[in-house]
């Protein structure tokens, strides 16, 4: 059931302190003056534990025991040489498409499946983990400022600003000491260079150019990080110690099978239609709205960005009116004022609707909440718009809940997901030829980037190449956990 309650994190990633590709969270452009950390480590730990639970709930964790143990082993090898403070480091893999890594106060370190897919060696992974360990050890997070939100927490379904980013100086320090930590642990500090280069190339592919620093961006540009890291790697003293994955083939074997892109188990969008195989669920969102699928909710935002509607599963139950009462009681502190209530049926489902107002940072908002009972669970639609614009979206707000139904056979058949596979090259083969032979779904540029090769690279016999293969969705192909 837990699994069924979780939604897929699609284009909306949890804001990343470090490696996420594209992100819109806001922190000031200039480095902040150094903040004296007043928070105790006990508070750090508690904040970290709570946030780790949130991460698990929102993104989900990969449960591949062998892979998780491997990442944890690499992390533990680094942690033996890192300042440990008063806590133990833990390492987990989040079920996130974007290449991402982040650390929470108290030693909770996460890498995403997207990041693992991008890496080509244990050295790269070690340098990334080293970077995150440094964030924790230096208590960078204690100085972070949370991004303000206009909606009350209860209605902030995106939680895009949940984790604010680190400052540029902190990122530079984490790059520098992360490389040093990797080196002390016996890994090649060039691993960070390699990884950042792959990240930069991926950015170019996605965004058309390498991401440039902007007003909202506190990260040094990836290009400058590559240059700085390369210079540092050449200077750093290190001695190779035997890696845990003996060779690249062993490393690739460990990450083979990871899901790529949107996971079908979390539901997929086919244009404005949302299909969820495990929940046997179909919803039609308004055309041309921006659709977003997070672990907490699935929804859409109007083109003018002045209206949004999203669906969450409130929990088990069959009494929509009680469910509404419980939720409204929780909303009491947010200033939500009920104006109208209505019992109704939507298709075969018992439903309950409440309309009301609340005051957000941008003025008065009107909200319509619709509870709907389905197979022993309470589904909740929330539609929000400024008071003045609400009327304009009434049709959409009514139609989305009404579109909810079970999947048809042909719709279910369309649900597929991509997985990372390892292909063995023939002698003299080009990437194009290998892709055609193996039904690789990545284009040539993407394949080259993911394997840190040039597009015109001539492959050697037996060379291992990462490819993306589209496969039928199998509900139990790999397990993840979330709450």
């Amino acid at each position, binding site marked *: 059931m837990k699994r069924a309650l979780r939604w897929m994190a699609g284009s909306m990633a949890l804001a990343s302190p470090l490696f996420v590709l594209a992100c819109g969270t806001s922190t000031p452009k200039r480095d902040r003056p*150094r903040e*004296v*950390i007043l928070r105790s*480590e006990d508070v750090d730990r508690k904040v970290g534990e709570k946030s780790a639970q949130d991460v698990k709930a929102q993104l989900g964790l990969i449960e591949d025991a062998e892979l998780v143990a491997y990442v944890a082993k690499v992390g533990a090898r680094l942690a*033996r*040489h*890192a*300042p*440990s*403070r*008063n806590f133990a480091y833990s390492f987990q893999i989040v079920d996130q498409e974007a290449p991402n890594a982040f650390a929470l106060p108290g030693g909770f370190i996460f890498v995403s499946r997207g990041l693992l897919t991008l890496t080509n060696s244990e050295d790269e992974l070690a340098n990334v983990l080293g970077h995150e360990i440094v964030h924790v*050890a230096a*208590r960078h997070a204690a100085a972070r400022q949370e991004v303000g939100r206009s909606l009350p927490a209860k209605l902030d379904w995106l939680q895009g600003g949940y984790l604010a980013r680190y400052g540029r100086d902190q990122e530079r320090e984490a790059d*520098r*000491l992360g*490389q*040093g*930590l990797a*080196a*002390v642990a016996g890994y090649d*500090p060039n691993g960070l260079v390699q990884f950042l280069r792959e990240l930069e190339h991926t950015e170019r592919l996605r965004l058309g150019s390498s991401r440039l620093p902007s007003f909202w961006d506190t990260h040094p540009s990836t290009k400058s990080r590559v240059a700085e890291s390369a210079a*540092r790697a050449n*200077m*750093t*003293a*290190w*001695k190779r110690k035997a890696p845990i994955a003996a060779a690249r083939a062993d490393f690739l074997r460990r990450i083979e099978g990871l899901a790529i892109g949107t996971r079908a188990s979390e539901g997929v969008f086919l244009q404005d239609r949302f299909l969820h195989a495990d929940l046997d669920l179909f919803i039609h969102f308004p055309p041309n709205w921006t659709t977003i699928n997070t672990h907490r909710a699935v929804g859409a935002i109007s083109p003018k960005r002045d209206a949004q509607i999203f669906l969450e599963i409130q929990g088990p139950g069959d009494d929509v009116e009680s469910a509404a009462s419980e939720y409204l009681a929780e909303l009491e502190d947010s200033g939500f004022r009920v104006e109208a209530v209505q019992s109704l049926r939507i298709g075969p489902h018992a439903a309950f609707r409440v309309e009301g107002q609340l005051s957000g940072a941008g003025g008065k908002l009107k909200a319509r909440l619709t509870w709907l009972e389905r197979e022993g669970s309470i589904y909740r639609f929330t539609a929000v718009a400024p008071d003045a614009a609400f009327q304009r979206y009434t049709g959409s707000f009514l139609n989305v809940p009404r579109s909810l139904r079970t999947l048809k056979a042909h719709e279910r058949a369309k649900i597929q997901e991509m997985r990372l596979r390892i292909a063995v090259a023939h002698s003299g083969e080009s990437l194009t030829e290998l892709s055609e032979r193996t039904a690789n779904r990545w284009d040539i540029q993407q394949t080259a980037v993911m394997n840190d090769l040039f597009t015109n690279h001539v492959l050697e016999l037996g060379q291992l190449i990462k490819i993306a293969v589209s496969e039928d969705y199998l509900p139990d192909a790999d397990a993840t956990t979330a709450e």
Partner: protein
Amino acid sequence: MRRCGESGIRIPIALLLCAAALTGCAIESPPAARVPSAEERAAAEAAGFEVDPVRSAVELLPPGLLTGAHYRIEPQVITYGFANRYVITSDYGDFEARGDRMLRTRIREIDALAALDEMSETAAFADAAGNALKSPFVATWKLITNPVDTILGIPAGAWNAMKKTSQLAQGERGALEDSGMLALIGFEAKKRQIANKLGVDPYSSNSTLQKQLNRFAWAAYLGGLPYLFVPFVDDSDFERTSAEPADQVAETFLIYSPEDLRRLNRIELAVMGVPEPLSDELIGHPWYSPRHATVLVKALAALDLTQNRSAFIEAAVTAKSEDDALFYEHTAELLRTYSDRVSPVLEIVSRDGIPMGITESGTLVIPLPADYASWVPATAALARAITEEISGQLNVERSELVLSGTASPLARKRFEALAIAVTERAFEQLEGESARLSEPPL
């Protein structure tokens, strides 16, 4: 670094160091300062030199620092080996402060001792101390505090004891899992907190302070001594004598355990390209407390673009006393300040134990922690070595002596006559935007 009297091309610098007593020379404790005799004075003048001055504390210090509630600075201050030697008479014993920076440390420590003394009279402390004695870890306490008490006063002993207490030297945590070791970790953390509140160094070589810190840390950790409120010493009368803002330094030593500092230093040193054996030598060095090593390493780490930082560490590990360790610590800070404020240091070179920098603009920077540099034979030898040997070997455009304190008018004149620019009070002077003080003579 060479011993006194050792021959070789670089003897002048070795002689300087011996005379200055700031580095090596196989002396286990610094030579006692003394007032030069009339004959020595006459001989020096006849040879065109000065003698180190003997000045009044009133002349050197702001009135507010001359006496405090619990101390008094003796009126006569002898400068010897570039350092002003102060004698402090206090309620907690007499202390010698070798240098202005040490004076600040000792005065702060005396005020801290007074505050602890006052607190030890309270019922809260008596209760906490009583509770601590009932603790099952009391044996551990005795085990740890006794060697510390006996050895303190010699920094190496203190640091070694620290290493033992926290089982910190080898980077292994396994043995810390037993309850006795966990108690020590708790004790050590509490000690850092108390030291931070008092504004003193938890790794100070002041044995009186160490003893008191240990007492209070155990009372706080095992006996539940409540929050300690001790006002910081007002040090606004002091000149700035370090590169790092005091609050940042204090925070570093509050939040990181000695072992964590060692690990951080090892990582920083690796990034600088310092080979592991040399790195281990510095980290395990008996005369470098975690604080000395960390301040030194942080200063060098800030020189991100500088090549050959290993040369600095090679010189630093020759330290044979706490004064030596402080010399290298302050030298690193001077170099960093210069690099930050004046011209980036691109390479470090070391000659007979003195680390120097070569800047982007081709200047040889000789950082010298000195309260006061007179034109004595050793200073002249340094000047000669710079002009006649080092500058030529390194093919630099110009040379600049960067002092943490000041030079006598004669010394300054002589240095400048030899085309060696002099920057005085570097930590203060180089802070500003227009930091250039000494241009090379035409």
